């Protein structure tokens, strides 16, 4: 087992997978799902252990790489790193890009290894827990996630809600997932496929920023400090280990529930971190916890998502579906008997995940020095590069030129919203949660043949409804109390 996991072929495959994943994750528009699909044919001719190790490495590398562009460019490299932008980009603007990147990679590795540990020790328990989450429970969980708008709304709750609803509305465009009815498509095939979440995110994060750079020449001529230090943040992370552990737990559980995924986990962890922080007002302005929480959560999703995949043979997201294909190609059928009957292979694979994290840590920590040089590029030149990169990225997601236009249109709308002082973070939250929210709600009602009782018969669902009500209630209470003073 150890010999197989540490053989030169496996090590080479793991290293290649990690690096490819990192690169794809770091470039907005090139996602790790895409990297997985591209690497797949290479695995056909390989032995099972190196082949699967490579796919796992692409997954972990890609999840981690997303933080690089989130921090440096303010554009999430993958949807899962959208929540990392809020504080990561602000830290970079303050000249602490290397701190932010260092924290992101350490939190990522922590989350990844934590979920691996859970996967090794508690596969069956977590799987049987996750399977109890049906449409009603997932709806309640996602609704709870939506209540985090309260925290992302910045100054005005009204503007925050407008933004959130806009995000939800954008995601209703296209063929609806349940009945296949075209909505707001104006009779075109292109709009039938809906607005891709990542295309919208690239537009929202990148375009307003670039427009601002060009319009407000003087203000942004030297936003970056001349020197960017490359210190390693061990000491600065001292107060964050407990947060990392909690966020990793959130990520693992959310990942294990089929039909949820990285972006939702990252937002839940971000909000959790802000809510339990001693200085919640610091979030959004460059607080380290705002990087640690989403990054440990989204990487923990990987181990979580592998739990139902390995123990039930059910892929929870598109990325694990590709990995499942890779396992099947090599004659490995994941399922209830898989771990027992292939124990030595499974443990070899676990070991390769550890190896891939070591490689990712080394590459990233070495790479930080290199990555931060991006910030020495003059903002105007960087702005043009970002636009080109985003256009290529938007095209690559679905191989459609239409998506490039869509990215540009959404970007300009995003700029206008910013000018109207409508925050963009709740729009992103709406994009992330909208499709799941609608689909699970409607599926639950189909299951119950139209009765809303299904939402109140499940203890999980009721718990999340209660939490949501508590957060919204607290928000209303605290804002009515604050208002007389501010006016």
């Amino acid at each position, binding site marked *: 087992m150890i010999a197989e996991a540490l053989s030169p072929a496996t090590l080479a495959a793991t290293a290649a997978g990690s690096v490819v994943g990192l690169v794809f994750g770091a470039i907005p528009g090139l996602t790790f799902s895409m990297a997985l699909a591209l690497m*797949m044919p290479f695995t056909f001719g390989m032995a099972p252990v190196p082949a699967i190790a490579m796919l796992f490495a692409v997954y972990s590398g890609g999840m981690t790489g997303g933080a690089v562009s989130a921090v440096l460019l303010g554009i999430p490299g993958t949807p899962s790193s959208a929540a990392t932008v809020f504080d990561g980009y602000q830290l970079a603007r303050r000249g602490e890009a290397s701190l932010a990147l260092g924290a992101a990679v350490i939190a990522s590795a922590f989350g990844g290894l934590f979920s691996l540990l859970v996967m090794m020790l508690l596969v069956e328990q977590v799987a049987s827990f996750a399977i109890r989450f049906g449409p009603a429970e997932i709806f309640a969980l996602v609704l709870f996630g939506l209540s985090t708008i309260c925290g992302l709304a910045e100054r005005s709750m009204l503007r925050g809600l407008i933004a959130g609803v806009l995000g939800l509305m954008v995601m209703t465009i296209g063929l609806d997932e349940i009945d296949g009815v075209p909505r707001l498509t104006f009779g075109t095939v292109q709009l039938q496929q809906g607005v891709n979440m990542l295309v919208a995110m690239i537009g929202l994060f990148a375009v307003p920023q670039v427009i601002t750079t060009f319009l407000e020449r003087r203000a942004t001529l030297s936003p970056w400090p001349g020197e960017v230090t490359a210190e390693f943040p061990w000491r600065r992370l001292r107060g964050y280990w407990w947060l990392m552990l909690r966020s990793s737990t959130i990520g693992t559980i959310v990942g294990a529930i089929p039909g949820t995924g990285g972006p939702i986990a990252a937002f839940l962890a971000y909000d959790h971190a802000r809510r339990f922080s001693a200085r919640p007002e610091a979030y959004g302005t460059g607080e380290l916890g705002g990087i640690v929480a989403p990054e440990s959560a989204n990487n923990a999703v990987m181990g979580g998502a592998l739990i*139902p995949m390995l123990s039930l043979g059910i892929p929870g997201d598109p990325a694990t579906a590709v990995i499942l294909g890779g396992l099947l*190609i090599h004659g490995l059928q994941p399922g209830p008997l898989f771990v027992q009957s292939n124990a030595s292979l499974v443990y070899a694979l676990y070991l390769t995940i550890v190896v891939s994290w070591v490689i990712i840590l080394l590459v990233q920590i070495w790479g930080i020095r290199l990555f931060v040089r991006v910030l020495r590029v003059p903002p105007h030149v960087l702005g043009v590069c970002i636009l080109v990169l985003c256009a290529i990225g938007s095209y690559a997601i679905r*191989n459609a030129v239409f998506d490039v236009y869509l990215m540009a249109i959404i970007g300009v709308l995003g700029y206008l919203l910013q000018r109207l002082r409508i925050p963009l973070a709740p729009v992103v939250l709406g994009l992330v949660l909208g499709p799941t929210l609608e689909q699970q709600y409607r599926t639950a009602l189909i299951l119950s043949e139209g009765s809303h009782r299904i939402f109140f018969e499940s203890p999980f669902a009721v718990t999340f409804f209660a939490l949501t009500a508590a957060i919204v209630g607290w928000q209303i209470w605290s804002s009515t109390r604050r208002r007389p003073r501010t006016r």
Partner: protein
Amino acid sequence: MLRIGAALIALLPLTAHAQYPQKAVEMTVLFGGSSATIAQVLADALSKELGVPVAAVSRTGAGGAVGYSFVRSSPPNGYTIVWNSNSISTVFHSGNIDFDYRAFEPVARIGMEVPALAVRTDSGWTALEDFAAAARSRRMRVGISGRGSFVHLVSAALFETMGIDVVYVPYGQGTAPAELLGRRVDAALQWPSQFKAQVDAKQLRVLAVTSPARIPVLPDVPTAKEQGFDVDLVMWRGLAAPRGTPKEVVARLEAAARRVVASPRFKELSAKLGFEPAFLPASEFGVLVARDDAAIASLMTELGLKKR
């Protein structure tokens, strides 16, 4: 990325009037999951046969409408082909595209996938008749993929023949088996590979497959027909090119596909993915596509799903 690569290869100097293929062939894939994996295996094998890269490019969304529209509007020169299926009929008759199978030249059928109806082992049902009897006393919930999808049509046809009325619960991303294990639905109609692991672990039991004969993946499972319910619905998967693609180009692709499907390597990988290779040449494939389109149209009319 693949397209960028393909574009670069396309820039290589070409000799005039050379034989097809001279540059990379792009194979549009309409769905993710197991269909995409088998498409990659096929593309990989076709590359070796044709001597040029064959890139499986994913253009998913809108039940296949996006990918079909793209391929249809591509030049008919054999460099853009589509990994198609009965979805050309379901997506047309549900009114989401304004062209049907006649917009494409059939190249070859590559194989088949047979829907299977599974229940939990602890339900005690061992045959379709048991399920039908139970369904007469209470309304069953059956997990399917999207409404109007092929498995929806198949289950509707099956339950109509059985004379029972069920609630169809649509799940995306292949989570129907999980919902079955989670006891939220009573049965699920999906692809056999999705149930294989649970069947081996004796947690799920497949009651029937909807093909005319038993399938190699589940040799012990009787067909619906054997159990007295005459349903013959199988999903084919094959290759098609835009209408007007030259005959000799189609023939070249067809020959390559024939050799791929006959190769032991392709058979071996297909078996592992739960896919049944079954080659049909272009002419017979064309007849099959037309016949299935008519059958799907009448089925969708009966179900009230036909919009065009």
